[in-house]
C-alpha cells in the first residue's frame, strides 16, 4: 500500500467490535488508546519486521522515517544525503541520555527502491538488524529506552508529524507491504516464519498469541482503517489531519 507524503498512519488504538454503529463495527467512534503501546518498545524481546520500498521519485524529506516515535527520535530512518538506512533510538543515561544509531551495512539504494524486508530484533540490551532475515548489524546499549517514548504514538510514514520544526517531522512517501510486531521473541527464525506463513495458518503457530499487530495493507475499510491480522484489534489508522503539520 502506498503511504502518501504527509499522510502518515499511527499505531495507537484498539477497537471494541462488540457493538456496531449503523451496522458498521470499525469506525472512529469505537476505539480507545491501547496501553500496550505505551511501553511495548521498552520490553526486552521483540521483532519488528517491515517490508517497504521508497522509489527515488517519491516525495520525501531529506531524512524520512519508515516508522518511528516523536520526541528524541526513535525509528527506522532513511537519509537521502548519506544514502543510509538506520535504526536510531535514545536510551536513558545521566547526566544526558544516550543517542544510539545502528546502520544497515548491506542495504543498498537499489534495494530500498525495489523493496526490502528489514527486521529490528531486540534481545535484552542488544538490537540486531536483519535484511531479508539475514543478520546485517547490531548494537549493544546499557540502559533501557527513555521514558519519553511511553507518551507518544507509533507512526508509519514519519516519526513526528506535529513537531514544530518541519525538519524533524521526517515525512516520506513509501510503499509498505508488511508491518508486524512479534513480542516476547528474539529468534529471527520466528520472525521469518511469521513473515512467510499464510495468514490463515497463523493461528496454529505457537507464537500466534504474541503477535501484537500484523497489518494486511490490502484490507482497508471505508474509513481508511487497515486490518490487523493478529488476534487483536490494533487496527492501523490514518492520522487525522489536525495532528499533521
Amino acid at each position, binding site marked *: 500500500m502506498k503511504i502518501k507524503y504527509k499522510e502518515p498512519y499511527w499505531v495507537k488504538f484498539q477497537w471494541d467490535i462488540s457493538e456496531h454503529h449503523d451496522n458498521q463495527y*470499525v469506525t472512529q467512534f469505537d476505539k480507545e488508546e491501547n496501553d500496550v503501546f505505551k511501553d511495548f518498545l521498552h520490553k526486552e524481546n521483540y521483532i519488528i519486521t517491515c517490508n517497504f520500498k521508497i522509489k527515488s521519485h517519491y516525495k520525501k524529506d531529506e531524512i524520512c522515517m519508515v516508522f518511528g516515535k516523536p520526541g528524541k527520535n526513535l525509528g527506522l530512518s532513511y537519509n537521502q544525503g548519506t544514502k543510509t538506512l538506520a535504526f536510531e533510538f535514545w536510551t536513558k543515561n545521566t547526566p544526558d541520555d544516550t543517542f544510539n544509531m545502528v546502520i544497515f551495512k548491506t542495504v543498498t539504494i537499489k534495494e530500498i527502491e525495489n523493496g526490502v524486508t528489514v527486521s529490528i530484533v531486540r534481545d535484552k540490551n542488544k538490537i540486531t538488524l536483519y535484511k531479508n532475515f539475514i543478520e546485517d548489524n547490531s548494537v549493544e546499549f546499557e540502559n533501557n529506552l527513555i521514558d519519553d517514548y511511553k507518551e507518544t504514538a507509533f507512526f508509519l510514514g514519519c516519526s513526528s508529524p506535529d513537531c514544530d520544526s518541519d525538519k524533524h517531522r521526517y515525512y516520506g512517501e513509501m510503499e509498505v507491504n508488511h508491518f508486524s510486531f512479534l513480542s516476547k521473541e528474539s529468534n529471527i527464525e520466528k520472525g521469518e516464519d511469521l513473515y512467510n506463513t499464510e495468514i490463515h495458518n497463523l493461528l496454529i503457530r505457537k507464537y500466534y498469541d504474541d503477535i501484537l499487530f500484523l497489518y494486511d495493507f490490502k*484490507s482497508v475499510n471505508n474509513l481508511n482503517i487497515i486490518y490487523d491480522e493478529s488476534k487483536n*484489534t490494533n487496527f492501523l489508522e490514518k492520522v487525522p489531519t489536525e495532528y499533521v503539520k
Partner: protein
Amino acid sequence: MKIEYQKPWFLKPKLTQSQTNILSNGKFSINLTFKVDKIYKKDNKIGFWGVPGKNIGISYDYEVDLFVFEFWTKHEGEEDKFNCYTYDCINDRTLNKGLTISVVYDGDTYYLYKDFKLFDTIVNSHPLIDDYLNEPIYLGCHNMDSLNVKHRCITEMDVFHFSVFDDAINIKKLESLITNETIIDSTKEYDNLYCFFNFGTSGDEFIIFDGYKDLCFLKKKNKMSTVGFDIVKDKLDSVGCGFCLAKWTQVTMHLHNGTTHSCHHPEPHKIGLEEIVRNPTALHNSKIKKQARKEMIEDKRPSECQYCWNVEDSSSSFSDRTFKSAEPWSEPYFEEIKNSDWRADYNPKYAEVSFSNTCNFKCAYCGPEYSSKWMEEINEHGAYNLSYEYNGTKRMEERNTKPYRHSDDNPYVNAFWEWFPELYESLDTFRITGGEPLLSKDTWKVLDYVIETENPNKNLKLSINSNLGVNDELIDRLIEKLDLIIKDNRVKELIIYTSCDGYGTQAEYTRFGLDFEKMFSNVDKILTILPRVTIVVMSTFNIFSIFSYEQLIKKIHKIKLKHFNTKRYWNSAIILDTSYLRHPPFMSFRILKDYIDVEYFNRWIKYMKFNSTFRSLNFHKTQLKSDIGFSVQEIEKISRIRDIFITDYETDIRLFDKDKRDFLEFIKEYEKRRGMNCAEYYPELTQFIKNIENENKV
C-alpha cells in the same frame, strides 16, 4: 411520499456527524407538510413527528378530536415536567386536506404555526430532558417500540416536506423556503439548515439522503421491531393458540417422492395419489394439512408443529409461527385466511419445489433421497455401517418415499404442471430446489414459462438452487434464460442459491463432485453477465469447514467488492448464509470440542465485522462501493455457531464419543468407496483422528 402503517421513518445523523438529536441544541425550527386520509390505517392517537421515550412531538388524538403538542422539560432539583397543549383549530378535516405545521423555538418561547399562521405561543425556557439526546426524530409514529400500545401513535400518512433548522427562523422566511419561492442555498438561513426534504411520490426507497447539507438521512424502519412481532402474535392468538399463516401461505413440495409440508419444520408427509388426481392443489392442500389448518382455527396446536410449541413453551422468544406469519408474503393475508373455511384450497405465496433427486454431486452429509449419485452408491455398496445405518434406504421404503427416477413418469410433477399457471399468478416467492435443478427438465420448463407467459408476475421473487458444478452448456443456458427474464423485467428479484462449506480442496472433500475453482469461475461468469442477479452461498458448516473457512470468507468478500453495482435488490452480489450441520451428528463441528480453539471463530467474526456494511439492501443511487461488506445477518449466523461452540465448554465430552467413533468409521469407508483420504485433505485433523483411534484402541 407515503409512510406506511407500522413502517415509520426516522431521521438519523450520518456517522461522521454529531449523533446528538438536533432538538436538544437549544433552538430549532421544525416543519412538516403532510396529509392523513380518512381511510388511512391509524391508531386512536397518531404521531406526525415525535421522539420516543417521554414524548416530544405533534399528534392528533381521535378520542377527544384534538391536535396535541407535547414535550418534557428538565428542572433543577425537581422532577421532569410534562408539557401538553391541545388545540381544536386542527381537526380530522384539516388533516384530510393536508397542512404544514411549523414549531419554532427560540430558547424562551415555542411558536406554533399552521400553514404559516401562528396559532399559539408557549413561553417555556426550561431545557428539554436529556432523554432526547440520543433518540432520532420519527415520522409516522411517536414510539414504535413502546410496550404500551397507546404510546406508539402509529399512522399511515402522506408527507410532502420535512425540514429542520438549528435556530428559530422567521416564519415568513420559512414559508418562502418551504413553498419554494426562495431557493434555500442562496439564503443566510442555509447556515442554520440541518435538513430539508421535499418528497416525491415514489415509495420504494428505504433511505433518503438530504441533498442540501448531507448531514443526515431519513431511513425507513424496514425491519419489524419486537413490537411489530408482538402485534402479529396477538393477532394470531386472537384466532387460536396454534394459528399460523404459514400453514396456508408457505409450502415445500418434494415432487420427486410425493411429499409436502408447511412450513419446513414438520416432517414432510406423503400426498395420496388419489388426492392429486382429483385436485392438483393437494400438493399443498393435502388432507393432512387441511386437518392441521382445522385444528389451528379451532384454537388447537397441531402436533406436527411441535418445533414451534417447544420454542413457545420453553422461552419467551417468538417462534417461527410468529416470524413466518409476519413475513410480507403472509401477514397481508391474515383476514382472508382467518375468514376462510379450513376445507378450502389456498394458493401459497411462498413455494419451494423439488422436481427430482437427480444430482451430479454426492455431498458427504446428503443422502439418496436428495441425490441420485448417492442412491447409486447405496445401491452398489449398501448403507454406511456406523453405530447406525447411515444413508440406508429402509426408512424410505417403509414410508413409501423412495424418489421417482428422472426418466419415470411422475404423477406429482404432472399435478404440479396442471396447477402451476394458477399458482404462478399468486406467488410472491418461488424457489426450485433439488437434486440439482439444472439437471431437471422441469426447471427449464419453469424458466420458459416465465419467459413466455403473456401475463408475467412481475412481483415474483424467483430463486434457483444449483451446485454450479454442471457442464458449461447448462450454465450458459441458465445465463441465457435468466438474461431474457431480466431484460423483460419479468420478475422482481432473481437469486441463485449455491453451496460451499469450505475453501479449495477441503471444500471438495465434503461436497463430492465439486470443482471449487470451476464453481467460483461460474459465480464470476454469472455475476459479470447478469449484474442484477444475487448469489447466496449456503454453507452447511461442518467439521470439515473449520480449517479453511477464513479463506472462504475472504474470497466471498473479494467477490462482493468486484461485483458491486447499484442494480440489485440486495446490497451484495454474493451473500454468505452460514447454518450449522446437525445431521449426521458425527459430521458436526461440535465433536471437535477441546481439539480446536475458539480463536478460529473469533478471527472470522473480526474480519467480517471489520468489513461490515452499512446496509443490507441496495439504496440505488446512494450506494457506494465502500458500503459493500458483510451484513449483520451474515455475521450473526457465524456468531451463533461460535456461541454453540462456547456453550459446549460445559458439555461432557463423553457425549461425543459415539459420534467420534462414527466419524472414524465414516472416513475410513469414505476413503474405501471414494478414494479420498481424510488426513491428506485435512492435515489439521491428523491428531484428532489418532486420538479417536487411541481412545478406541483401533
